[in-house]
């Protein structure tokens, strides 16, 4: 398909307006169906037995007693999910994570599963499964795991990315490096150098909907999977590969998704549900409990980061360096690598070097969490930037403006930037009334910047025009926060019709070509590109049909404002034909009218944000309260500004939770202590103020409407913005996230004792 994705600077009539979302009524009436809201005839209940040990060899599993329990229809272990990954290491890890094969690698690791006629029997059956474990020493802390004396999680791991292959295995799977220039020279030129070490604890995406699916495998190798996921096509690929099914015979339907934030980007229990269904010969519904969600899905990396930044008296940064250690759970990942890429991306740096180390620990497999790895790196860098500005005696915003990256700057991760928004967000913050709002005693103001990549990727859209002129839009990216509304706006814009004429749905995997998942802020960016392309293809057909109706050459027909117009004075008597007019005659002009698009939406922009926040600290208890919060972010073009604001606010709230109270707490036994919403403390309504937003629009040159992804960047600055605010409020520099009251009080006491 010849599709020109370049930004055209067109004037919009639909894009940028704020209509009601098409799935709104279903969602306010309880009708919308999420992962656990679907049932099939004859369905069984699936449950998973999980390891109580952080690290243990599975010597044997005896399932015979469970199998004999009345009402149990299938019991499976790793034997029922044989390794079909054929050397694909990433898929092998996903398989092993779904069902432990030789070793249980973390508290909560799946070791067996049952399908029974009801939940009570399934629970009883789990108790009858006897697993003989040989408990091994474990390690859950990222720094301890990186130490050469640490218990080895996988003795086949030899650190990649070193000049020479190391002689001994290690928990460090990979070293990565980015940067340019000469940092030694840069630090030698500096008048001020700041050097700090930081730690961040592991957090969970905290989606309110636990993982849930209904799997049905038929003896002929066809199968259906209903599941909450960020990418049903990706889940199809994973499940087909792991179960030995043919991808096109496995239909995956994405339910409404109750939050994902990166945690629903690869399979967890779905292969288990399919394997249970295959063995039982009946559909199986498998819903994780909240405890399982925390113990066995999701979390982000825990990190340990060293930062060194030098600057001249005039505020020019001369060198920046960071070493980043990120936990991956028990399987290899590239989390520190992303941290190393994003750490200094906001700045124009002559000399910069970042080194990342991926570290295995006995914790759940790390998954992406909204701009994965970037918030921790930004916390370390933006805290240090504030300290450096203070040393130099410069205003924190001015110091950043002086060093901000701009078009033409070589990014710290390599390439040269096109038009970007970091400078404009900083200028907007400088002028923002928030910066002048009065502060009381024990209150402080902080600000920080954040960067995140946007993804593009494989994308399909079908646009079908009904005989009555209404339009259905079938997209393949899961709607996580209102994208059906924004994509309808884009189709309306391109076709020149009213938003109300359209209805968008998310199609299942058998109804549309392959789509990458909704991740990397790509949903609206990619699917809008495919929607524009599909609409343009439909317009080609509409023009052709109008030409037939008028009996004139198609070259003389143009499409304007939802109408075919015959161009040329000789057609003066032909009144324009609306989409509806043409659709009504479609049966006799060549049949159904549709526009399809299958493309790779490459050329995604990069995204920047700057946040401001005011914090009040109770110096006697270390308690914090967020008083005011403002997000300024570049959207490229806000297709549906209300939902763009929603992304900004939601990301900020998640960042606030991460900064202040959220953390995985492990006991000495390697078991997770707080696997529930009671003690894994995500912000509640009364914890937060209104979150003010300002949308900037610096068009992405590689999208017809200038759209950039907006979903993720807003979680990047809050950790540092809050740390900077706490520092400005009570004079202590917090280097350990979350800044929970005990940590703040301890820091204050240490400061008071001198």
């Amino acid at each position: 398909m010849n599709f020109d994705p370049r930004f055209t600077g067109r004037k919009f009539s639909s894009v940028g307006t704020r209509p009601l979302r098409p799935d709104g009524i279903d969602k306010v009436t309880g009708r919308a169906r999420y992962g656990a809201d679907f049932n099939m005839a004859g369905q069984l209940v699936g449950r998973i037995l999980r390891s109580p040990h952080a690290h243990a060899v599975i010597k044997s599993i005896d399932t015979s007693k469970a199998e004999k329990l009345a009402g149990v229809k299938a019991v499976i272990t790793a034997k029922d999910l044989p390794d079909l990954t054929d050397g694909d290491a990433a898929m092998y890890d996903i398989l092993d994570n779904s069902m432990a094969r030789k070793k249980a690698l973390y508290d909560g690791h799946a070791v067996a599963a049952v399908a029974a006629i009801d939940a009570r029997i399934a629970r009883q059956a789990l108790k009858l499964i006897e697993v003989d474990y040989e408990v091994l020493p474990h390690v859950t802390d990222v720094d301890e795991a990186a130490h050469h004396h640490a218990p080895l999680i996988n003795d086949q791991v030899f650190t990649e990315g070193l000049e020479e292959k190391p002689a001994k295995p290690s928990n460090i799977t990979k070293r990565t490096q980015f940067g340019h220039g000469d940092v030694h020279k840069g630090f030698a030129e500096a008048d001020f150098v700041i050097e700090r070490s930081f730690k961040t604890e592991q957090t969970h995406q905290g989606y309110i909907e636990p993982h849930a699916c209904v799997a049905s495998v038929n003896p002929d190798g066809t199968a259906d999977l209903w599941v909450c996921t960020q990418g049903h096509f990706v889940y199809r690929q994973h499940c087909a590969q792991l179960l030995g099914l043919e991808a096109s015979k496995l239909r995956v339907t994405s339910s409404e998704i109750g939050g994902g934030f990166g945690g629903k980007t690869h399979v967890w229990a779905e292969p288990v549900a399919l394997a249970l269904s295959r063995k039982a010969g009946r559909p199986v519904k498998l819903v994780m409990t909240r405890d399982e969600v925390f113990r066995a899905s999701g979390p982000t990396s825990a990190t340990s980061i060293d930062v060194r930044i030098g600057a001249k008296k005039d505020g020019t940064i001369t060198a920046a360096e960071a070493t980043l250690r990120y936990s991956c759970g028990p399987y290899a990942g590239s989390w520190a690598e992303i941290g190393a890429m994003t750490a200094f991306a906001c700045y124009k740096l002559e000399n910069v070097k970042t080194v990342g180390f991926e570290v295995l620990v006995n914790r759940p497999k790390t998954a992406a969490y909204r701009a994965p790895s970037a918030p921790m790196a930004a916390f370390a860098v933006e805290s240090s930037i504030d300290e450096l500005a203070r040393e130099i005696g410069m205003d924190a915003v001015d110091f950043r403006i002086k060093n901000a990256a701009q078009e033409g700057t070589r990014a710290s991760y390599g390439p040269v930037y096109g038009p970007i928004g970091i400078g404009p967000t900083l200028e907007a913050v400088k002028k923002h009334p928030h910066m002048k709002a009065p502060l009381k005693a024990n209150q402080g103001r902080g600000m920080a910047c954040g960067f995140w990549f946007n993804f593009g990727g494989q994308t399909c859209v079908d646009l079908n025009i009904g005989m009555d002129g209404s339009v259905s839009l079938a997209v393949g990216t899961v709607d996580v926060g209102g994208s059906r509304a924004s994509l309808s706006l884009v189709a309306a814009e391109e076709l020149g019709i009213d938003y109300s004429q359209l209805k968008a749905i998310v199609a299942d995997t058998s109804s549309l070509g392959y789509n990458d998942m909704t991740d990397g802020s790509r949903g609206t960016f990619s699917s809008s590109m495919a929607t524009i392309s599909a609409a343009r293809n439909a317009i080609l057909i509409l023009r052709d049909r109008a030409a037939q109706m008028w009996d004139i050459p198609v070259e003389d027909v143009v499409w304007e404002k939802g109408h075919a117009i015959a161009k040329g004075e000789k057609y003066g008597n032909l009144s324009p034909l609306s989409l509806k007019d043409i659709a009504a005659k479609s049966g006799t002009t060549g049949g159904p009218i549709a526009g399809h698009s299958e493309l790779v939406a490459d050329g995604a922009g990069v995204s920047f944000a700057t946040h401001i926040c005011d914090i009040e600290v109770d110096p006697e208890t270390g308690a914090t309260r967020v008083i005011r919060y403002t997000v300024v972010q570049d959207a490229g073009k806000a297709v549906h500004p209300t939902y763009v604001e929603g992304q900004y606010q939601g990301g900020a709230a998640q960042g606030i939770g991460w900064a202040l109270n959220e953390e995985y707490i492990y006991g000495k036994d390697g078991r997770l202590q707080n696997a529930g919403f009671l003690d894994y403390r995500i912000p509640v309504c009364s914890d937060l103020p209104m979150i003010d937003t300002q949308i900037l629009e610096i068009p992405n040159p590689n999208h017809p409407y200038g759209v950039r992804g907006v979903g993720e960047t807003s979680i990047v600055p809050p950790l540092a913005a809050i740390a900077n605010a706490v520092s400005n409020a009570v004079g202590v520099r917090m280097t350990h996230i979350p800044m929970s009251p005990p940590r703040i009080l301890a820091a204050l006491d240490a400061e008071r004792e001198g």
Partner: protein
Amino acid sequence: MRYIRPLSIEDAVGELAKAVGPAAILAGGSDLLVRMKGGFIEPELIVDIKAIGGLADITETADGFRIGAAVPCAVLGENKAVRKAWPGVVEAANLIGSKQVQGRCTITGNLCNASPAADSVPALVAAGAKAVVAGPSGKRTIAVESVPTGPGRTSLAKGEIIEAILLDKRPVHAGDAYLRFIPRTEMDIAVVSAGVNLTLDDKGAIKTARVALGAAAPTVLLVEEAGQVLVGSKLDEATLERLAKICSGACRPIDDKRGTIEFRRKVAGVLAQRAAAIAYKRAGGK
């Protein structure tokens, strides 16, 4: 498993006394159902006490108040008379869980769940509240602090049910208060907490005082020395400092997922000071 809803306390006691396997009393269920969900308890008998006459009532007697064991904390919070007499007890009760949990949870359940971090218990202990226990051998009235004996353990014998909590009638110049520390603004279990109950003499000096701390030891702590230090004072700075020191010193806390030993010690003192100031003001002190 059986679920029963007896209509009299005698029937409830009888069923519990003759139960063979584990039995559970259900009032609000906000602890029981969580423990059942987590597989920590699998009762063979669930005795729902909400249909028993009088257990869902708050009655004002000549001696004070009788709060039935099945009175949800939300209902307690709506009772103006109790709120006026014992604002600290009521605010403590109303801190348990969310609005949703408030519609179900009871102070009796909070007491019998025997968590050292229970919100209403330090306030009840400070208030000198009593529990009316019905059992196979009749009824007895005991101080609330004698109910919990350790985390999750109580002094109640098999077949015994607390049917009501008693609060004394208030003299003039009396006030109580309860404060807890939580990391968020709602929905958390107390990291540490303090309840203070005071009466003043005509001159505004403290006549009697009781101070109780929560989440500071295996059971709620009644810190008698802290009460004594307040008596005779008008809550001057030096007294408050001594109060904090005594409370911090009385703590025997643990390090856990909710807080550290140091944090609990320190904040116990801070909360005792702040609660004392509120109670003093409520009692009419200046």
